C-alpha cells in the first residue's frame, strides 16, 4: 500500500468495509474518507486511489464524492478547525457578528489557516445546534451560546494546548 495509516484507522476501515455486503462496498467510501482525514487532515490523490481500490470503485467515483462534500478537503486546514455557523438560527442570535469577529481577531479569511498551522476558520451552514445558537464547532467539539468574548477564550485555550 502506498499510504501508511495507523493501525487504528486501518481497523476502522476494515470494520466499515465488512459492514457492507459483497458488491456494495461503494457505500463505505464516505466513512473511509472521513476516518482517513481524521488522521491525516487532508485527502490526497494516493488516499483516494487506495480507497477506490478497496471499495472496488473507480478513482473518479471517489473524486466525485470528495468534490461534492465540503467536509472532505484536498487542502490542509489548521490543527484546530474552527467552524462558525451563520445559518438562520445562529445568525438571529448573533452568529454573523461572531463570524466577523473571528475573521478580524484572527486576521484570517474563510478557509484560511494561521501561519503556524494551528488554527483555521470556516463559515458553515447549519450544524444542528440551533437550540444553543450561536454555535461554534472545533473539529468535532461543540461550543454553545458563543459570544465574541467566549470565542477569544476558546482560541486562547486552543493556543495553550498547542
Amino acid at each position, binding site marked *: 500500500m502506498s499510504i501508511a495509516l495507523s493501525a487504528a484507522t486501518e481497523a476502522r476501515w476494515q470494520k466499515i468495509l465488512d459492514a457492507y455486503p459483497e458488491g456494495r462496498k461503494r457505500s463505505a467510501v464516505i466513512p473511509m474518507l472521513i476516518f482517513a482525514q481524521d488522521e491525516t487532515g487532508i485527502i490526497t490523490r494516493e488516499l483516494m486511489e487506495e480507497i477506490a481500490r478497496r471499495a472496488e470503485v*473507480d*478513482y*473518479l*467515483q471517489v*473524486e*466525485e464524492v470528495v*468534490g*461534492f462534500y*465540503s467536509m472532505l478537503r484536498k487542502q490542509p486546514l489548521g490543527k484546530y478547525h474552527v467552524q462558525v455557523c451563520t445559518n438562520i438560527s445562529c445568525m438571529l442570535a448573533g452568529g454573523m457578528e461572531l463570524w466577523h469577529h473571528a475573521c478580524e481577531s484572527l486576521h484570517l479569511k474563510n478557509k484560511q489557516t494561521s501561519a503556524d498551522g494551528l488554527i483555521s476558520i470556516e463559515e458553515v451552514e447549519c450544524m444542528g445546534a440551533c437550540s444553543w445558537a450561536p454555535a461554534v464547532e472545533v473539529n468535532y467539539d461543540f461550543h454553545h451560546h458563543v459570544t465574541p468574548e467566549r470565542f477569544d477564550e476558546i482560541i486562547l485555550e486552543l493556543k495553550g494546548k498547542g
Partner: protein
Amino acid sequence: MATTTAPPTVINAKLNGQDIQTKPGTLLINLTKELGIEVPAFCYYEGFSLQAACRMCLVQVNSSPKLLPGCTTIVTEGMVIETESPLVVEARKSMLEFLLTNHPLDCPVCDKGGECELQDMVFKYGAGESRFVDIKHHEPERPFSPVVYYDPARCILCYRCVRVCDEGYGVNALGVVNRGVLSEIAPNRGDQLNCDECGACIDICPVGALTSNTYRYKTRPWEMKHVGTTCAHCSNGCKTTLGVRNDEIMRANNRDSSGLNEEFLCIKGRFGFDFNHHPDRLQSPMLRIDGDLQPVSWSKALAAVAAKFNEVKAAGGKFGIVASNRTSNEENYYLQKFARTGLGTNNIDHARTGDVVTLVDALSGKQGKLATMADLYQTKAALVIGSDLAQQHPLLAYELRRNWRHHQARIYAMTPGPVREDKYAAATARVAFGEEIAALEGWREQLAKEPELLILFGDSIKGASLRQLVDFGESLGIPVKYVALVDYANSRGAIDMGLVPELHPGFVPSGQPGLTLPEMLDDSQLDVLWVVGANPLANRSQANPKAFVVVQDLFLTATAARADVVFPAASAYEKKGTVTNVTGEVQRLTAAVKTMGTKTDLEIFGLLGKEMGLELGIWSPDAVFNEIRQNVRGYNVTMPILATGGAAPTTPVNGKVNVETRSDLVHSAGDTLFTSGSMTKYSQVLNTVAERPGQLYKPV
C-alpha cells in the same frame, strides 16, 4: 377473512382533460410521448437509468401539491395530469432561465447550434429575457482526449454522457466533480480520458458541452448533406450517417437511431472515416515503367492489364486472385464471375477470418440456427467463446450488455484472458485457445438449464472443433443459435459470394480444384497475381519474382508497391452496393463522397472485362445485385428493407455444403477497437488516441 385483489391490468387517468387508459407501471413521460404530447426533457433518455436531474419535465398532478418530474412519475389510477397548465408553462420558463444562468449563449459559434436541444427548448418554451445579472462562472474549454473536448460552461449537467459511458458501453470513464455552479464533468484520468474513445458521450450530449475534435468549429449541421451508409471497418455492420460538405466527410453518427445499431458506433465508425481523405490516397492508375511505378491514364493502365491477362489466358498460364474482406457483395460476385468465366480459373481466395463454411455445413437440415443482430438483444442467454468482444466486435458487446441491462440476459464468457463481459457475466472462465470444447463440458449442466442459447465463437473454433461445438450445442436440448465471428465489413459477404476456390456463391461446391491464398503466394509458376483490396505481400513476397502483379487499392500498400499495375480504388464510402455483416444481414452502401481519379472496384472489373473483350454482363451495382438475388441462395432479400437503409437477413443454405473446406486457413487478424487492418495506418484519429493500438486479453 383475507381477500386478494388481482393487480390492475389497466390504469385510468386524465391527461389535459381527456380520459386515457394505459398499462400499469407506465412512466408519465412515455405516456405523453405515446399520445403525441410533448413534455420537454433533457436528462431523460430512453434505455438508460432515470436521473431526474434537469427538472425540465415538470408537470402538474392532482395528487401532489408540487409539480412532479414526468420522467420519474408512474401514472396511477385516477391521476389527473396537466402538461400545459399555466403553472407548468411558468415552471418550464423558469427552469430554462435557470439553465441559462451560466450558459454562455454562444450559439453562433457552437457546434451544436441548429441541432441543440437547449436552443430548441428555449425557442419553444423559454422566456426572452433573463433576470440573472451576476457574472457567469466560466471555465475554459479543454481536451479530454484527442477526440473528446469539453466546454464546461455549456454543460447543463444532465448526466447523459455519464450514463451512456457507464451503462451503455460499460466503460464508466466520466463523472461529475465539485458542487453547485462549480460542478463539471471530469474524465477518469485526471484531466484525460482512458476509454473506448467512442464519442457516444459527444453525440448524446443535448448541448454543445462535449464536442469532437474531428468536427468542432468546422461546419454547421445545415450545411451538410446527410448520407446513410454502412461502416467501412468491422464486421458488425453499423449503420452510420455521414455528414458531408464539399465532397468531404465532416462527421459520422447515427442520431436518428435507424439501422441495426440504433445510435451505437465505436471510434472507428464515428471518427475513423478520416482514412478517406488521407493525403496518401491513390488518385491515378500507375504502371511500372523502367522499374518504377509511374502515373498513367486509365485507358493505358487498363489496356496494359487486359493485354497481359489475355496473353496469359491464351497461353494457358496461371492466375491467382486475392479478393477482399471489404469490397461489396456486387464487386465480390462480379470478381468471382470474372475469374471463373472470364479467366477460366478457380484460383480465387481471400484472407478467411471465420469458419462460416463449416458452420453452415454442420447446421445443414436445421432451421433458424444463425442468429441475427436482434437476437443478441433478445436472447435469454449467450455464450462467448474465444473473443474479446468489446475490442473485436464492439456492437455485439454493446448489444449483449444492453440485453443484460434490460432483460437480465445471462452471459457466459470463455476466453483466454479477462474481458469486459466478466463484470456482469453469469459465469466466466479463462480457457486457452484450443481447449474450449473440453472446458465446455463443465458448463453443460448450467447451460442446459437455460431456455435458449446464442453461441458466438472466434477463430479458435474451426473445422473439427466447430463440428464438436455444434454437437455440443445441439445436445443441450434447448434452442441454440450461432454466430461465427468474422473480422471485416464484408468478410461474411466474401464467403457468401464464393471468394474461395472450393465454393461458388451461395455455398455451392465449385467442383474444380483451385489454389488457396497461401498456395498462390507459394506458387513459383504463377503468371499473374491480381490483388483487390488486400495486402497479402505485407510481410512476404510472391514465389515467382516475375509474376505480373495487379493491385486495386486505396493506398500504396506493401503489395501495391510491388505491383506492375496499380488501380486507385474508391472506398466503401464512395460506392453504392451492399455488404453482409457478421450476423448475415445485408445492408446498403451509399456513395457519400468521391475522390478524384478513383473508380469503384466494380467499375474497374467492368472496364477491364470490356477491354479484354469478355461478356460478363452489366456492371452497375443494381444490376449485379439483381443477379445475386436470383442466383445466390439466401440472398433473395426484401428490397424495401434495404432501400430504406435497413438490414435484411439472409438465409443461407439448408443442406450439406459437401465440400472439403480449408478451415486451417481461417485466421482472425485480431484487430482491436483501435485498429482496422491495413487501414489503421491511414486514420489519424486511430493513431492519435492514447489507447492505441488497444490490447486483447490483458494479462491479469
